[in-house]
């Protein structure tokens, strides 16, 4: 009982401490605009912020980041609806029906409805986090090192393959990240790896500078190709949707929120994939939409929004219980936790339960602020979204440079940032994604450590090592999931599912 009360006290911390509540609110508010402005992403904002919050208390840093995360995932849909430019990848699906709705003069209600459904999905995500994480954490205690190894590989494969493009490119990007992650002195034998005789590199690759370069500078360089996007003025009135409209779509929103949580909880797969899958789900299950999909169906904005915001709660689950990021943003957050001396993993709930329950309370609070700010500031919003890129992009560069400088008050990190930024630009231009690189940098040491522990416990015998994957039930399940993920990306899979469909028809 006393445990419950202490945990509840931790849970309420961000509500009772006005400064933490202020930071969460500020995070959500800023996040909505970061998410809404095309060219700014949550990952970019969080990467830059990490180095600024070094000196803060960990709770303060987490409150600000959680706020930005929620605000950013939600904010993308606003610009999707108003100007047909998704502000964030998670909002691509929202633009499909959101913009047609705006053209029909219902932009206000569309924003109102996405806000309500986003908050709804977010709260379902928080509940799943509060219930699911302790359960998964219990289960994770029985995970062997090889299982962590499999989870890390699975996460890299998922982020590399699901977010579109050629799977080989996703795998390459993930492996490249792992390679950076193994740079520096080997933690077991202290042998230098890829340090090229430089003392600075013995501590490993400067991953915060890499994150800022890959998500900040390279994105700015990509944006230089399209400096102007057409701005359309929309009439925005009647923000609050009628209760009838909300009630009608609650069942769909519930299903899509849960879908979002599950996708979010998969290592590597985040809000963008959840939103697209939810949109697809809505399209398949809605029998008689008021308006056809693509022409302003309410279902077409309810489903992706509930799933996208719901997925955030899901993404926190593997991050807090396994130390494995749910998507690129949580990969960056794990980086932040490392800097604060915390090791997210199954022991976190046992050793630092306050951090877990604080986070749960804090993300719930973020959802509440989302509901408040979602209905405010639409006029200001229209102005901010129209900031010309010729002012915005140089400012992002200054923020990135200061972020990199602030890591150790050392200009060398700015050079790293630029190097990673330019490499990231070419990777992006040629169809590689940078998300897997960051995931790889975070997962690299985890993969290294767990592979070697697993191999040592198998007596350094590869045959024994491999046979353990088939004899342990947990490992076997992971092997099957991993195989299915790889198979689903090949053409044999399409043939197989086609065969099944024909048989059942």
């Amino acid at each position, binding site marked *: 009982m006393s445990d419950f009360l202490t945990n509840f006290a931790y849970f309420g911390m961000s509500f009772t401490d006005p400064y933490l509540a202020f930071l969460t609110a500020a995070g959500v508010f800023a996040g909505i605009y970061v998410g809404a402005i095309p060219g700014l992403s949550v990952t970019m904002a969080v990467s830059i912020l990490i180095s600024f*919050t070094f000196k803060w208390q960990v709770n303060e840093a987490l409150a600000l980041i959680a706020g930005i995360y929620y605000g950013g995932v939600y904010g993308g849909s606003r610009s999707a609806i108003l100007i047909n430019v998704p502000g964030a990848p998670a909002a691509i699906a929202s633009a499909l029906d959101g913009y047609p709705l705006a053209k029909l003069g219902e932009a206000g209600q569309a924003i109102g409805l996405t806000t309500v459904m986003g908050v709804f999905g977010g709260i379902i995500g928080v509940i799943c986090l509060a219930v699911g994480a302790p359960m998964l954490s219990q289960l994770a205690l029985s995970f062997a090192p090889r299982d962590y190894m499999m989870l890390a590989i699975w996460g890299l494969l998922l982020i590399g393959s699901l977010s579109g493009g050629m799977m080989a490119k996703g795998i390459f990007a993930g*492996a490249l990240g792992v390679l950076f992650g193994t740079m520096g002195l080997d933690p077991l034998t202290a042998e230098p790896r890829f340090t090229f005789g430089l003392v600075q590199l013995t501590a490993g690759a400067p991953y915060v500078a890499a994150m800022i370069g890959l998500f900040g500078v390279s994105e700015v360089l990509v944006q230089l190709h399209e400096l102007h996007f057409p701005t359309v003025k929309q009439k925005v009135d009647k923000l609050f949707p009628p209760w009838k409209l909300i009630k009608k779509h609650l069942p769909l929103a519930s299903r899509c929120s849960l879908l979002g949580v599950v996708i979010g909880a998969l290592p590597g797969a985040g809000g963008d994939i959840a939103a697209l899958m939810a949109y697809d789900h809505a399209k398949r299950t809605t029998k008689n939409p008021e308006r056809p999909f693509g022409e302003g169906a309410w279902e077409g904005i309810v489903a992706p929004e509930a799933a996208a915001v719901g997925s955030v709660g899901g993404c926190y689950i593997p991050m807090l219980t396994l130390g494995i990021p749910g998507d690129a943003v949580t990969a960056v957050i794990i980086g932040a936790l490392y800097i604060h001396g915390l090791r997210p993993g199954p022991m976190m709930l046992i050793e630092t339960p306050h951090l877990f329950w604080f986070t749960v309370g804090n993300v719930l609070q973020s959802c509440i602020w989302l509901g408040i700010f979602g209905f405010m500031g639409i006029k200001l919003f229209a102005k901010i979204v129209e900031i010309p890129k010729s002012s915005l992009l140089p400012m992002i560069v200054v923020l990135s440079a200061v972020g990199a400088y602030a890591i150790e008050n050392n200009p060398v990190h700015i050079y790293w940032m630029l190097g990673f930024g330019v490499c990231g630009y070419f990777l992006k231009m040629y169809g590689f994604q940078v998300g897997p690189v960051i995931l790889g940098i975070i997962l690299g040491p985890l993969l290294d450590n767990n592979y070697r522990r697993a191999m040592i416990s198998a007596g350094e015998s590869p045959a024994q090592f491999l046979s353990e994957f088939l004899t342990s039930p947990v490992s076997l399940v992971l092997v099957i999931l991993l195989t299915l993920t790889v198979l689903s990306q090949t053409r044999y899979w399409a043939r197989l599912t086609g065969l099944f469909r024909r048989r059942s028809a």
Partner: protein
Amino acid sequence: MSASDEQMDKARLPGETGFCVVILLFSVTFLYLSYRISGFSSWTSAGSLPMGTTLVMTVAAIVILFRELAKPAPQLTGGESLTRGFFAQVFPLRHIVFIAVLIAYMFLLDPLGFITDSYLYLIASSLVLGERRVVRLIVVNALSLAAVYLVFQTAFSVVLPTGPVEALFR
């Protein structure tokens, strides 16, 4: 999506093959460097995971190279050479100048101090991006920089390189 758009999607970009060769060479080089860490001394040596990783990278790079070669050649307008196409479509002059200004910004940060250097950088790069309105260049950039500086100093207490302008605030 029109037919020509689809073709554009499928066609290689200028320099794409070259880039694939570069990443393949990079992978092979690092495969060799990983081998050099501890050779094949044991299954759990310091070089084991790097070797596995770079092997995966090498195989992936070969697959990518062959997949790219199977795509139609880059679309170039009116007898444009590949190099020109690369600089037109992938790495235009605006990018090069933008990066050059950024490099200058990096190196001048310590000697000039944060405020002076950032202000000059903001103006220079806005110019590169085609901003020509004087008020925006001078006033808006000054105001936004002031806001950023204030936030850094108060909320984040970030230590920034100081120059003559910062000295005035002491």
